[in-house]
């Protein structure tokens, strides 16, 4: 799928084909996409654990459920538990010098190993590593960037995915052997959509002029209609929801799975 269509086709999918497992190779593609994401300090901010629903015994599956996650966990054949590793700063000094060696952080932009060793590490990064609020803030931003890549990789492979609030961490942590330094951020549900991939049409979005600016906040972004037309043609901008049959689609899916209406 072309990039623009991937971005435009992404939806939060909530009805999965519960009977169709996700190929391990497709999860690897998602992980590799996440691993290629932009990251400051070349740090490994995130950790993720892929779990196949049907590999879990009944006791574990029941332990993961609570009154707000039951249907989600039943329908999605694969769960990816995403975490921030709060120890991500460790090793940053060496990783940054590695980037200096690779000329990714060049002298042309002020970088040197001496700067990393003498100033950046002792005066900036090490103090940040001791400020939990800063660690969580940076970790959340950078982990989110990685997850975004994984989401788009899922869509590109014909999968549906939905980010779900991370609940029942007290139960999940010992079950999955999660270290104390991992902070839960999102539970990603993955599977083949039982609903149409368009999931009733593109979700409402506000115009670019309400979110983006040019030069200063006094000048909202003025859309070029030719670009808008191109993006529509290429699938980034799609027919808005709800499709006329969306309510019926949800109703039929709910009945198929015996869910509340």
């Amino acid at each position: 799928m072309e990039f623009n269509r991937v971005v435009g086709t992404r939806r939060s999918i909530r009805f999965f084909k519960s009977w169709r497992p996700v190929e391990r190779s497709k999860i690897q593609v998602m992980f590799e996409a996440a691993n290629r994401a932009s990251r400051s300090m070349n740090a490994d901010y995130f950790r993720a654990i892929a779990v196949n629903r049907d590999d879990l015994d009944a006791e574990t599956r029941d332990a993961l459920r609570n009154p707000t996650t039951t249907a989600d966990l039943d329908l999605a054949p694969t769960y990816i538990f995403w975490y921030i590793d709060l120890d991500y700063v460790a090793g940053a000094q060496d990783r940054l010098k590695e980037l200096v060696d690779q000329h990714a952080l060049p002298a042309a932009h002020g970088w040197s190993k001496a700067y990393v060793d003498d100033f950046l590490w002792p005066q900036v990064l090490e103090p940040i590593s001791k400020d939990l609020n800063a660690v969580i803030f940076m970790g959340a931003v950078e982990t989110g960037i990685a997850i975004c890549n994984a989401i788009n990789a899922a869509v590109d492979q014909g999968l549906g995915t939905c980010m779900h609030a991370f609940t029942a961490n007290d139960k999940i942590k010992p079950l999955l052997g999660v270290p104390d330094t991992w902070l839960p951020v999102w539970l990603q549900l993955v599977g083949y959509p039982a609903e149409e991939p368009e999931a009733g049409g593109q979700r409402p979005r506000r115009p670019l002029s309400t979110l983006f600016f040019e030069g200063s906040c006094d000048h909202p972004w003025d859309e070029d209609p030719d670009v808008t037309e191109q993006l529509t043609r290429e699938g980034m901008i799609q027919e808005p929801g709800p499709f006329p049959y969306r309510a019926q689609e949800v109703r039929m899916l709910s009945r198929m799975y015996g869910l509340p209406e």
Partner: protein
Amino acid sequence: MTGAPDVGHDATTPPQPAGAAEGSGRADPFDGSPAVRRWLDQAGDRGTAERMGDVTLLRRFCAAEQTTPDELVARCLRSTKSGDTAISAAGRRAADQAITAFAAAEGLSGREAIVLGNRLRSFLIHNGIFLQGPASIL
């Protein structure tokens, strides 16, 4: 009202199951219940017969729990220190477990139990109680 059929007294007081208040001299808690009205108004495109069946089911559940529809919703709520109303995790869990137990007590299992339980969960959901039941995936 949002597309719901005329569900005045007829729908909120469907054919009476055992244990209903009618004829007992007590006021029927389903009559004029805001929670029942809200449910019926918002629960999608279910036909009148289905909705009446849902109300009958809710009536049986309330009888088993010795409560009223509005009290059922209230049990899932709590007051915060600032005076706001919030969902009670404990109350919601108790309601969810009571629904599961009710389906079992009805002699149902598998998909039948899931469907019946989720018909009851629909009542709480449309009254603002975020809740998920199991899906029938077998």
